[in-house]
């Protein structure tokens, strides 16, 4: 009985707080904020969400609880649909999902029930740059050697829709690099092993996931996509070799979401002051010395990009002319 009363009370409080919230500054005292993560526990998206969940409460008014709920499936479309259609716009539900969902919307993937431009964007917690790394015992020092070699390079990949597949695919199709893409490895770790046993020559992947193997001198990066991370500024960018403006646009489109490596959103219609409070909390939490120390230990590089900047990128992606989108959809398939 008592719990029922409290429950109804909470409902009433939310109902009252919604219109009033626009006037007063938002407070989360005694509340629980849920970060809905579109992937299973243990991956990069999940680990980022959990590290944030530990440090966000300090910077939110009223020091609420922040918990992570995993809602995996359909490459996180399910989680995004949930935040868009089911979650209340009260700031108590934050969603984090596959950065490529904007491309899923662009190419009309069935099952997408959200409009990325209408989310209340908190921002992005990291930028994830894709690089192509080749085995260090091969005689190619850089991308030019590779192009001139006249030999086919075997690339290990997981499957269409992953950067291990899409990035080399565009190098092959648009830049004419002689690549043979072998896909079906169950994880990027499996591809690393295939590199060790010389079954494949190279793999593409996010720089952060490749770094331990680059440090060990097993592989070295030769080309990257446009998103920049410290350590790979000097690498050539794939777009700079594009033979036509259209090829360039397709490559740019593939890599655009990488700048928004770890997207965080709230339900459409969340009051502006709640969004503002949340953006500030994210911005401060991601600079928190304890968080930074933990992230460094876990080899994660986190950096905040506020929601308005993210939204600009999202809108730019979604406003591409139809011929570019069609060209893009010829190569890239949204998937696992």
């Amino acid at each position: 009985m008592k719990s029922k009363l409290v429950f109804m009370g909470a409902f009433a409080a939310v109902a009252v707080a919604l219109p009033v919230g626009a006037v007063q500054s938002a407070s989360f005292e005694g509340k629980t904020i849920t970060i809905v993560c579109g992937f299973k526990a243990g991956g990069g998206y999940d680990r980022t969400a959990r590290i944030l969940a530990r440090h966000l409460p300090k910077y939110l008014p009223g020091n609420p609880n922040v918990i992570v709920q995993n809602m995996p499936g359909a490459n996180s479309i399910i989680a995004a649909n949930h935040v868009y259609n089911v979650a209340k716009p009260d700031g108590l539900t934050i969603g984090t999902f596959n950065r490529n969902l904007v491309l899923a919307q662009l190419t009309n993937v069935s099952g997408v029930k959200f409009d990325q431009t209408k989310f209340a964007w908190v921002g992005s917690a990291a930028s994830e740059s894709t690089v192509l790394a080749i085995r260090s015992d091969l005689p190619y020092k850089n991308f030019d050697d590779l192009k001139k070699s006249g030999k086919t390079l075997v690339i290990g990949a997981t499957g269409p829709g992953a950067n291990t597949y899409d990035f080399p695919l565009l190098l092959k199709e648009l830049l004419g690099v002689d690549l043979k893409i072998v896909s079906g490895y169950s994880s990027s770790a499996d591809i690393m092993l295939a590199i060790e046993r010389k079954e494949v020559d190279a793999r593409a992947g996010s720089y952060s996931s490749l770094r331990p193997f680059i440090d060990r001198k097993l592989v070295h990066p030769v080309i990257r996509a446009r998103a920049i991370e410290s350590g790979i500024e000097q690498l050539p960018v794939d777009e700079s070799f594009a033979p036509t403006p259209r090829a360039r646009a397709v490559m740019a489109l593939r890599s655009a979401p990488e700048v928004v490596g770890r997207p965080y959103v709230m339900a459409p219609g969340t009051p502006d002051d709640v969004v503002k409070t949340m953006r500030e909390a994210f911005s401060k939490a991601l600079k928190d010395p304890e968080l930074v120390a933990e992230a460094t230990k876990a080899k994660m590089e986190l950096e905040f990009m506020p929601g308005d900047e993210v939204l600009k990128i999202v809108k730019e992606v979604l406003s591409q002319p139809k011929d570019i989108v069609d060209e893009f959809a010829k190569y890239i398939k949204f998937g696992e």
Partner: protein
Amino acid sequence: MIDALLEGLLLVLQWKAFAFMLLGIGIGFWVGLLPGLGGITTLALMLPFVYAMQPVEGFAFLLGMHSVVATTGDITSVLFGIPGEGTTAATILDGHAMAKKGEAGRALGAALASSLVGALVGAAALALAIPVVRPLVLAFGSPELFMIAIVGIAFIASLSAQGGRGMLRGFLAGGVGLLVATVGQDPQAGVSRFTFDSLYLWSGLDLVPVLIGIFAIPEIIDLVVRGTSIAGDMPKGRLNQGALEGVKDTFRHFWLTIRCSLIGTFIGIMPGLGGAVAQWLAYGHATQSARSAEERQGFGRGDVRGVLGPGAANNSKEGGALIPTVAFGVPGSSSMAILLGGFFLLGLVPGPDMLTTHLAVTFSMVWTIVVANIITVVVCFLFLNHLARLTLVRGHFLIPVILVLIFIGSYSSNNHYGDLLLMLTFGALGYLMVAGGWPRAPFVLGLVLGKIAENYLYISVARYEADWLYRPIVLVLIALAIAVMLYPLIQARRIRSRSVKHA
């Protein structure tokens, strides 16, 4: 080497590391018992707690937890016929059948004792493999992994009933399993297969709800229909001394236990095969030990060897799975992938260094697996016979509890109502299979191996075209697959000639 071995042991026995290990064991104990709540998720949830720990303490905590999960998962499988973990489903076939015969104690004793043997073999393999690990793992490329999957599928011959009709049903069930494994988006062209426009089916079927459905639902219906306790009206005298008998069984079939442990270790070492495979291959191998037609038919109806095989394999594979994780920084299973995150947190870079500079830490992991399993098995034995009495509780008290557990267990895999539908669908299938006399083990084998076989075949052909067929290890494995397929025939002939001699 010997120094590092001893140093590793001392590291684990330091009071702080030891205390963390006990804590880990305590958590792992419950995680294993509860169906659905898996060791993988728990590892991920516990990872943040190791920030403040020293490497040895952190690993004692994580590995202590992890190495117990498969052991206590067997307990749920035996007692209730629900897979406590995705990796302990094979124990149900004979373990739960024994429980129904009133031999729960013996089955539990056998499961625990074989788990301990398995863990020790796995740990020993990890220690022994350290000098040769790199060439060993590198010798197995995609063609070889594909052939291992084929050898696994060949075990269907052993998992099916004897005779033409039994074989036909077994291979059909296996075929359906392979087909079910194709659900979801394929990794070569990105085509959606059998997804019926449902987002839930995109990423394929989750193993846990399927296993819970196919094994637990028929048992529950059976329990309802019988209206008795799990052990029915069996004589109750045997329950109390059962556990010790199970331990004796382990030593009676000691070589089988060792062989199944080695199978588990080997599957563990091979990255990409996954934990669910080992138990089924071990079970298939255990059925091959039947010496007569009657003995063969006893499998699935409560033969203790059907408990020993998977019991040993699902523990020994953990030691095996650590090998590629430590030596290459490449995880041998999904739980090891999360453990790998733990390496970074603790400031260690997995790879060749772990076999030289940090050798003592590596050995401390070996010791953690050993010590954690010994503690768990000893503690479990203290109240094993009490646990066995649960099979005497009347069905209508048990069923509601079991139902809650299997619903929560299924739901926790994706937090999606689709998990429940999936569990119920495969529950219906499982019930029909049991009622119609179709074997479930080949179906599950097809399901767990389907994706592996498909992907590695594609990679082998794409990379080597037809040349992969001539690789020496592939040839050996082809011969092995044929031998495994023909074994039931050889077995049948041997049994016949023996009975002729007797006559």
